[in-house]
């Protein structure tokens, strides 16, 4: 009796490190395969209409069913997710650059710090969607417009974290001592501060993905984002609205669920990487 109990516990209590690594690995594998599959799918073949198979419900042949033009919804969703990841990646890179610049800038002196804080608060206080739509229109819309809009609006949380973190490190005693050893500001920034904030940056970037993806999908859905010929998830969802009342539920259900799944995967990776880089947070 007790022996079986022990065995059970042994399986459930896998070492946290292994567990975290496995979860992160699987999540990453799924994301990468979604993204890479885009390059192997023949876009024209998938997106060409086929009127023999119009509005088929999900089956083994068409996992996610087909739409009113007979296109396979699974393939369309896969392409849509690929675009989402692409937009997310570009937007995250832009946001991270802005966040790092502002974070570092804030440590120059108190006046600059106040200005940076004010800018962060200003951007944080404008409704996100509105700002994204405006910036997207200002950049002329399309793929480029969406990437810039999402990228230029998502840096606030990371900038705020970096500013606080740099401030904390700068006031620590070992930085003061480093000054006494005659080390230059650049040396201290490179050797002391950067290695300590790099983990924050990595986690911040990963956790930015889900936001960027969701916002891209929402403005595409509203018609301000990607053009209608792109197989983006937002477009798929907005098109499917017309057909939902006719009972073609699979047109919205599977793409929506896939988007949610994608977002959760990024969240999961972010949290687990955070645990790996910053073990204090894993201390129960």
């Amino acid at each position, binding site marked *: 009796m007790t022996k079986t109990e022990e065995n059970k516990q042994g399986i459930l209590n896998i070492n946290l490190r292994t567990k975290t690594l496995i979860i992160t690995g699987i999540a990453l594998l799924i994301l990468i395969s979604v993204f890479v599959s885009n390059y192997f799918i023949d876009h024209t073949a998938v997106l060409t209409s086929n009127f023999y198979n119009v509005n088929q419900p999900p089956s083994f042949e068409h996992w996610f069913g087909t739409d009113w033009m007979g296109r396979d919804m699974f393939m369309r969703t896969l392409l849509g997710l690929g675009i989402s990841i692409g937009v997310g990646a570009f937007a995250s890179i832009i946001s991270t650059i802005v966040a790092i610049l502002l974070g570092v800038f804030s440590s120059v002196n108190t006046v600059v710090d106040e200005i940076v804080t004010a800018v962060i608060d200003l951007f944080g206080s404008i409704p996100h969607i509105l700002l994204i739509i405006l910036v997207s229109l200002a950049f002329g819309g399309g793929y480029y417009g969406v990437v810039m809009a999402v990228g230029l609006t998502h840096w606030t949380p990371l900038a705020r974290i970096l500013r606080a973190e740099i401030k904390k490190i700068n006031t*620590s*005693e*070992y930085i*003061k*001592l*480093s*000054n*006494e*050893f*005659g*080390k230059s500001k650049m040396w201290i920034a490179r050797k*002391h501060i950067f*290695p*300590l904030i790099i983990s924050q940056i990595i986690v911040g970037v990963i956790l930015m993905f889900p936001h960027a993806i969701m916002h891209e999908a929402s403005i595409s859905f509203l018609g301000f984002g990607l053009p209608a010929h792109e197989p983006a998830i937002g477009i798929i969802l907005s098109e499917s609205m017309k057909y939902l009342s006719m009972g073609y539920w699979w047109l919205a259900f599977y793409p929506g669920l896939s988007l949610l799944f994608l977002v959760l995967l990024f969240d999961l990776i972010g949290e687990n990487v955070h645990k790996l880089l910053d073990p204090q947070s894993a201390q129960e």
Partner: protein
Amino acid sequence: MDVLKVENVNFNYGSHKILTNLNFSMENNQVIGLFGDSGSGKSTFCKVLTGFIKEYEGTVTINGEVPQGGFNPIQLIYQHPEKVMNPRWKMRDVLEESWMPDDNLLDEFGIKREWFNRYPSELSGGELQRFSILRALNPNTKFIIADEISTMLDAVTQAQIWDSLLKLARKNNVGVLVVSHDKKLLNRICDSIVYLSDITE
């Protein structure tokens, strides 16, 4: 001969006066004890001396010159060594930030080479304090300010680190200001004892 001189130093924290008209001097072949009650401003004085606090009135000079930029010849050793070490650095980097002593000196301080690849959180308080003392005893150091450096250590370790520190300081002609609330310790290791209340107004 190097002379450390503190003249007419005033330091206020808001409207609260912490140091008033402080005058003090010592030479580099001396070991002087500084005694004062807790909260009397001993630690503030240490920080003024070593440039950790810069917004004070008065002057701190070595041989009549204010230490400027680069390596500060007046080095502070803290009560809590773990606070003055970057938690993500290995001990080798921590030590090398100041200088790398030769093998003999490392042995004299009882520092084992295997510790070099460990992080500060993996060493005991006594082990860390050895590193921070050796780090402060850079060849360019002329004065050491030791602020309660053995308060958190057991008596055995206390005796060991003072023995190592004072031997090296005397050999290199480094002046040591020993700040402590433990008068018996000051009596043991110092040439003379100064009361903070006697050098301030």
